[in-house]
């Protein structure tokens, strides 16, 4: 019921037609995120269902990214029908808005793979020649042949090194031009020095060249870099997106009564704006005309749309659902509540920006140390050891290569890739490179209620037995966009949409029928006295949490539809698991008290806080943090976004508002929360293995650096040692994949086991 725009149909008839793109051939294209696609069978079901639609030209699901590319002829409006069709199949879909960002990310990734391929090409060919030369040292290879081979190797290697070294060179150059250092600086210096040395050797007919070592090094490092990139995903700015949302044009009513679309910053206090039904409100103001249901979930997390009439305040970012409104502008732009959320989010994101990956902290002192050592080795051998410049330089190069943070460079990405792969098989996507690190220390979890602990659609818990009544209600409800109407309308999808339905925002629907008028809506609207209703009608109400909708007709008894929020499958077990592992659990929701209390009660959560604004949520998180807690925030709404950014780590469901998904460190797919404890355990284990790997890499360097400084290592041996250390680190990371301590929890995840709130839970489980 929240975020009707972000939700796929039929939540509230989300309109996806506006996101379609016209193709050059006149057909339409739309990218959708179908998060429940998990296997080949799903892919097939989705593709076949869509291919069977008459206008669809192509439908192709990418199983890795869960993205559906849909292409059809005809009108853009068909998109809504397709989304409905998918939703009917059990695959709710939402618009994939991050397309552009992903494309950019994709091109960087492609560039890395290409560099990787070139490095491999070069390494393979040069190594072929190097083996020949090496064998030639013991056999009868003459100097001329050796030089010839060296020249060929140089001709192949130099362009390959130039091409595949770019990712390191450019990054190192950027760092150095800012007078900083990063991991790429020692790599680049090592690569360039070794290559230069080898070219010098080739030209002077020297016995040793090291092109093969350089290319192999680049290849290994690029593997690490590629894996790292895979894990990190894109640096996405949620703030930017929110600002876009706030910048949508609004319709100003001009002095002559006409409407004019103007950007919000052109509005002045006191201007009148027209807000059509289904439009997002762009300003903070006061209603001067009309009445409507307004979904304020984006701002305050309230799940039930508010019925507003003349005089009531409206806020930018909320959604006008049912009727057109005219509002007098009170504040626009930076002064709105939405802008306040943006500021909170910005502040929280900056705070999180201070987190740095463990490996980065190690590199900070590692890199200067290594350079100093190499320089000292060169100067020492040259000035004190009495070696020539080339020979002394060669020792310095050996030091650089052997200390090249290859194991260090692989230690973190490879472990994170294994962990992220494992998590992705469980349906959790890792978005931030420091997420696992932060997740490992979590000892408090804060849940937002709706959409995280409960599902988004309230479940119909009571419907009339009378089918003609249901049919009538369905056909009336089909005319309305109200979430509850949509739910009733879907009871009998084949019911004809009634024509003469009149909608009274905040009250209900009316339609003339034989002998009078049929009404669908609240008890008050239907003329019923809720207190005086006979007990049989209300006795099914178990928790008092149901939302009721009544239908009255002439000559018939009133009939009742009741809705109750549904807990996510596994919510109860997840909370119990977390508490069993000494993790503090709390609910902080923007929803009303009784609703939150009932859920907290069902789940056995002692502490809860209701009617929280985004700022309240941050305050609560900070309060916990000052008590020494490391907080994981689980939430899905725009109103949770600042809290998601402020918490130590954050998790959002895949169906969450776009912006929340971006602000969150991790995104989980599917309906079950059961992966949460598993996730925490994987993160803790990952962190341990990263620690082990870094410790190993440092120990390896401590042992080999003195050997290299002593001039006992040739670059060739250094390269082998380095490759070996990478293999050890990789092997250690792969141990993660064998991990299964919480498998029992994962297999308990049964989507059918949704717990209905209005059904009493046995006392023993409370």
């Amino acid at each position, binding site marked *: 019921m929240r975020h009707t725009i972000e939700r796929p149909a039929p939540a509230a008839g989300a309109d996806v037609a506006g996101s379609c793109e016209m193709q050059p051939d006149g057909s339409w294209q739309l990218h959708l995120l179908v998060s429940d696609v998990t*296997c*080949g069978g799903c*892919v*097939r079901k989705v*593709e*076949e269902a869509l*291919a069977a639609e008459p206008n*669809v*030209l*192509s*439908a*192709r*699901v*990418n*199983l*890795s*990214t869960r993205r559906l590319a849909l*292409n059809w002829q005809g009108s853009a409006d068909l998109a809504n029908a397709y989304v409905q069709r998918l939703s009917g199949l059990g695959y709710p879909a939402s618009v994939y808005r991050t397309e552009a960002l992903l494309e950019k990310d994709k091109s960087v990734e*492609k560039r890395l*793979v*290409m560099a990787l*391929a*070139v490095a491999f*090409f070069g390494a*393979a*060919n040069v190594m*072929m*020649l190097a083996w020949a030369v090496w064998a030639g040292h013991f056999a009868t290879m003459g100097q001329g*042949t050796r030089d010839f081979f060296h020249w*060929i190797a140089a001709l*192949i290697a130099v362009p390959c090194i130039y091409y595949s070294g770019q990712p390191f060179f450019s990054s190192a150059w950027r760092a150095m031009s800012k007078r900083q250092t990063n991991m790429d600086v020692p790599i680049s210096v090592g690569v360039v020095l070794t290559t230069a040395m080898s070219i010098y050797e080739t030209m002077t007919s020297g016995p040793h060249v090291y092109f093969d070592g350089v290319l192999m090094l680049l290849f290994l490092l690029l593997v690490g870099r590629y894996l790292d990139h895979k894990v990190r995903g894109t640096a996405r700015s949620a703030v930017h997106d929110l600002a876009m949302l706030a910048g949508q044009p609004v319709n100003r009513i001009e002095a002559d009564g006409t409407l004019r679309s103007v950007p919000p910053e052109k509005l002045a206090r006191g201007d009148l704006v027209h807000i059509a039904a289904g439009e997002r409100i762009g300003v903070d103001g006061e209603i001067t005309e009309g009445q409507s249901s307004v979904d304020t979930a984006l701002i305050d997390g309230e799940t039930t749309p508010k019925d507003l009439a003349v005089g009531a305040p409206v806020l930018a970012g909320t959604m006008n659902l049912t009727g057109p409104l005219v509002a007098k502008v009170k504040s626009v732009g930076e002064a709105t509540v939405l802008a306040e959320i943006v500021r909170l989010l910005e502040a929280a994101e900056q705070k999180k920006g201070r987190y740095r990956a463990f490996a980065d902290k190690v590199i900070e002192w590692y890199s200067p140390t290594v350079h100093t050592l190499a320089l000292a080795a060169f100067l020492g051998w040259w000035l004190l050891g009495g070696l020539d410049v080339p020979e002394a330089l060669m020792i310095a190069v050996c030091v650089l290569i052997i200390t090249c943070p290859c194991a260090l460079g692989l230690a973190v990405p490879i472990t994170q890739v294994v962990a992220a792969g494992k998590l992705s098989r469980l349906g959790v996507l890792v978005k931030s490179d420091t997420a696992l690190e932060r997740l490992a220390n979590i000892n408090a979890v804060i849940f937002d209620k709706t959409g995280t602990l409960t599902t988004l659609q309230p479940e119909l818990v009571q419907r009339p037995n009378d089918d003609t009544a249901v049919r009538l209600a369905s056909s009336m409800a089909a005319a309305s966009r109200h979430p509850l109407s949509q739910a009733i309308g879907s009871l009998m999808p084949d019911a004809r949409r009634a024509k003469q339905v009149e909608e009274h925002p905040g009250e209900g629907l009316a339609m003339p029928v034989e002998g009078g008028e049929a009404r669908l809506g609240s008890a008050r609207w239907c003329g019923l006295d809720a207190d005086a209703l006979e007990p049989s009608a209300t006795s099914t109400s178990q928790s008092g949490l149901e939302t009721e909708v009544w239908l009255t007709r002439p000559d018939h008894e009133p009939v009742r539809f009741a809705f109750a929020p549904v807990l996510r499958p596994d919510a109860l077990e997840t909370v119990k698991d977390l508490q069993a592992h000494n993790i503090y659990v709390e609910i902080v929701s923007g929803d009303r008290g009784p609703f939150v209390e009932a859920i907290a009660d069902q789940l056995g959560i002692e502490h809860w806080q209701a009617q929280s604004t985004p700022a309240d949520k941050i305050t609560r998180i900070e309060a916990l943090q000052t008590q020494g807690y490391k907080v994981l925030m689980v939430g899905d709404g725009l109103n949770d976004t600042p809290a998601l950014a402020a918490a130590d780590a954050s998790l959002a469901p895949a169906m969450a508002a776009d912006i929340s998904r971006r602000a969150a460190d991790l995104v989980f797919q599917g309906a079950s929360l059961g992966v949460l404890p598993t996730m925490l355990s994987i993160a803790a284990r990952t962190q341990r293995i990263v620690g082990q790997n870094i410790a190993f890499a440092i120990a390896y360097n401590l042992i080999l650096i003195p050997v290299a400084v002593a001039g006992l290592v040739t670059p060739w041996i250094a390269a082998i040692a380095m490759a070996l250390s990478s293999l050890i680190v990789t092997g250690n990371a792969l141990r993660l994949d064998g991990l299964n301590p919480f498998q029992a929890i994962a297999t308990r995840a049964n989507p059918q086991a949704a717990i209905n709130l209005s059904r009493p839970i046995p006392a023993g489980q409370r």
Partner: protein
Amino acid sequence: MDVLLFLIPFALLLSAVGLIGFFWALKNGQFDDLQGAAERILYTDDHPEHAEPNLDREREP
């Protein structure tokens, strides 16, 4: 040793062909969905409309 004048360029050529082939596959998006491709091969029946959307449609009345 003269054979080297033939063998080395030939080895280079072969691996260059491999490299170019890889670049081609990469640019054509062959590696975009590794999981999906692994599943698609298991489809028992062919669905030409997935690959060639327009051809089948035009044949329909």
